[in-house]
């Protein structure tokens, strides 16, 4: 009994030692990489190039998105002014493959200005057309003007959607815990449609969907993003690794 306890204790101690050593090695490795003066210079070069691109975006007349993996933020901006910020819950990069053969695009999504971003499926605007009755002719008084719909009623948001950019990048917006509020059948149907769409896009091997950036947002943010995104938006992805996603507040669920 005593020997068994000693063995367990020894095994736990050995495991802790291994974990500690690994952590120490990792800690030691990071400063070594950044303390290299040539790497430091290269890092500065890259930062400057990014700043230059951000200035170019801020000086332009178009709306643009800044994705900052380091702060888990996706910000809609215009002329340097942050308009709306969305918290990124997950970030993945997708490449097409056909019959298990990868067709990886050599470009990296970072440090490039992606332009001409449009929603897919597009946000439909159903315009009400009113023909005036003409001077002196009274419009029918018996029909009061209809109460206009709310934005939620006006713009139904698909469970998943894309923002497609001109040069082959497609940003896929995926709500966290997607489709939690819809039925199982609708969920399965949406998943099938999505899968079929993926297969078609991969087989088409066009420049339209050469790289995918999958961004996971909270459901409310995903809906808000779809409703708010202006046309012909631009995008830049800044330096930095993705931080582990913070848990969403309890009241941010899809069922609200």
């Amino acid at each position, binding site marked *: 009994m005593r020997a068994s306890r000693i063995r367990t204790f020894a095994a736990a101690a050995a495991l802790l030692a291994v974990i500690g050593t690994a952590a120490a090695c990792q800690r030691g490795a990071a400063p070594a990489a950044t303390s290299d*003066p*040539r*790497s*430091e*210079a*290269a*890092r*500065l*070069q*890259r*930062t*400057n190039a990014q*700043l230059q691109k951000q*200035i170019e975006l*801020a*000086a332009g*007349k178009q709306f643009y998105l800044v994705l900052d*993996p380091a702060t888990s933020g996706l910000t*809609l901006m*215009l*002329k*340097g*002014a942050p*308009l*709306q910020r969305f918290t990124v819950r997950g*970030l*993945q*990069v*997708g*490449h*097409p*493959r*056909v*019959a298990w053969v*990868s067709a990886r695009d050599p470009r990296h999504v970072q440090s490039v200005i992606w332009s001409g971003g449009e929603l897919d499926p597009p*946000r439909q*605007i159903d*315009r009400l057309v*009113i*023909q*005036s*009755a*003409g*001077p002196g*002719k*009274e419009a029918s008084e018996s029909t009061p003007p209809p*109460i*206009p719909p*709310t*934005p939620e009623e*006006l713009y139904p948001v698909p469970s998943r959607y894309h923002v497609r950019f001109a040069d082959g990048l497609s940003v896929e917006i995926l709500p966290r815990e997607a489709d939690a509020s819809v039925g199982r059948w609708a969920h399965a149907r949406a998943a099938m449609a999505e899968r079929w769409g993926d297969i078609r896009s*991969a087989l088409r091997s066009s420049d339209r969907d050469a790289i*995918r*950036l*999958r961004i996971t947002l909270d459901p409310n943010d995903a809906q808000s993003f779809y409703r*708010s995104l*202006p046309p012909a938006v631009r995008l830049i992805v800044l*330096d930095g*690794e*993705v931080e582990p996603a913070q848990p969403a507040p309890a009241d941010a669920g899809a069922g609200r």
Partner: protein
Amino acid sequence: MEPSPSLPAGSAPPAAASGPDAAGRRPPAGPQAAPGRTPRAGRGVWFNRRTVAVTAGAVLLAAVLLRGTGYRYEPYAEQPLAVSSDVPSDARPLEQFTARLRSRQRTLGARLDALMPKGVYIVIDQTQNRLYLKRGDGTLLQAVCSTGSGMVLRESGGKKREWVFDSPRGRFEVRSMSRNPVWHKPDWAFVEESQPIPTNPADRLDYGTLGEYALYFGDGFMIHGTLYERLLGRAVSHGCIRVGRDDLRKVWANARVGTQIFIY
């Protein structure tokens, strides 16, 4: 398996088969041909089993290939850092090179900061009908508003004009501010109400409709109050931004001529 009813048991197969099934249908010879069975029956078993096996294999292969078709996702990773050839190797030049880069970084950072709006600015989300009063990254006020309905009005007679009631998108700035504003009704306001367009400018004046304050930002557009606060949050305006009375007072208190307005 029973012999085919179309052929009597033990009858020989036709010497030269024709038709679409002919290819590859040779009678099994030698020890495989079971004694007492007709060659035709043996071929049928072989053919059916092969067909089933080939079909199953094809379906399986298609499923496997489709399984491997689509998009493969992996966690986002930062672009690997590549040291370009213009980075010096020697210590002294490298130090100077890095110092120049740091100086450039400061300059670019300052240029980027200079492009950001100074002081308070107004942001309007026209699809969700929200107005934000911001300073830097902070939000001072979030208000429900009403933006352009997107409605199209067509004139029946006269010049057969057409108006689209959208709020504009982009950056604007407050050009003038007015307390107790008077609305100079444009032509569409009369066309919409099926009234003749007045020739006397005084007949276009409308008092009280715009609320306590109006902030003009060009082309006839303004941020103003409303008589229809129950419709706030819905896109009902003719392109202007309607705000509730209390929120409008806060906007008025913080805005100045030149305050930037961003509408998206």
